[in-house]
């Protein structure tokens, strides 16, 4: 086995943590969604690792579905951002407080 499983899982954990940090800390809406993509990629890495580890194709199939859902999420998320930018040009995350109680 070329790739040690613990390296794969630790890489996945590190990438997921970086994605969580990016999503929580960045103020740019687009970069927040990109941080979600980093997290999804981290999950895909561990799915592919488990697929190799257990000798099972299902991990790879699930990773393909994750990629399909990520593509759908990118489309809807960016559509929302464009609509938002049309209604309130130049608004950042900090200014979007209409739903605040």
């Amino acid at each position, binding site marked *: 086995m070329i790739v040690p499983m613990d390296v794969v899982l630790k890489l996945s954990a590190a990438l997921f943590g970086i994605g969580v940090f990016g999503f929580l800390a960045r103020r740019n809406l*687009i970069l927040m969604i990109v941080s979600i993509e980093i997290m999804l990629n981290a999950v895909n890495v561990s799915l592919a690792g488990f697929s190799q580890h257990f000798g099972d194709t299902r991990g790879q199939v699930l990773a393909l579905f994750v990629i399909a859902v990520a593509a759908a999420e990118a489309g809807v998320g960016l559509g929302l951002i464009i609509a938002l930018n049309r209604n309130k040009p130049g608004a950042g995350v900090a200014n979007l407080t209409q739903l605040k109680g």
Partner: protein
Amino acid sequence: MMLFTAQAAVYYMAAASVASALLAVTRRNPVHSMLWVLALFLHVAGIFLLLGAEFLAAVQVVVYAGAILVFYLFVLMLLDLPGEETRPRFGGHWPFAVAGGFGFAALTWFTQIVTHDTAGTGIATQSPASAEGQFSVGLADVGKALFGQFALPFEMASLVLLAAIVGAVVLARRRTDS
């Protein structure tokens, strides 16, 4: 020698992935962030290749690096956010975000240490063929699984994508009736 090269490639890919992810979430210029994310996606594709998931690596390059990332860059440049580089990158709560990221990473990290028992009783028991290096998930196996066992989820994925297309058009359309 061959094995050593492969091992070196694994560690290079892992280190470069983490480094480009870190750079991607910390750069001030959003376009630079996107280019680091591109580097991350390509290195992750390399890891898929080393894990024997050739089809996943190809999809990663074509769909993620080729389509999704270009889409993000396109919207980023379409919106043309002025003064983005002068505004603060992070909210004032960023130390909590660091703690959250470390918390999640540590949770996953320690979970895998606890469950990775080589005695063969935990969840991390390796399949015998995989341990001997005999096993490789081929493209034919993935195709059979995708159109056999996972045919219904596969069709549902196409419905999800159709709904996303319609939703994106409806959301981003300019309303002319009012």
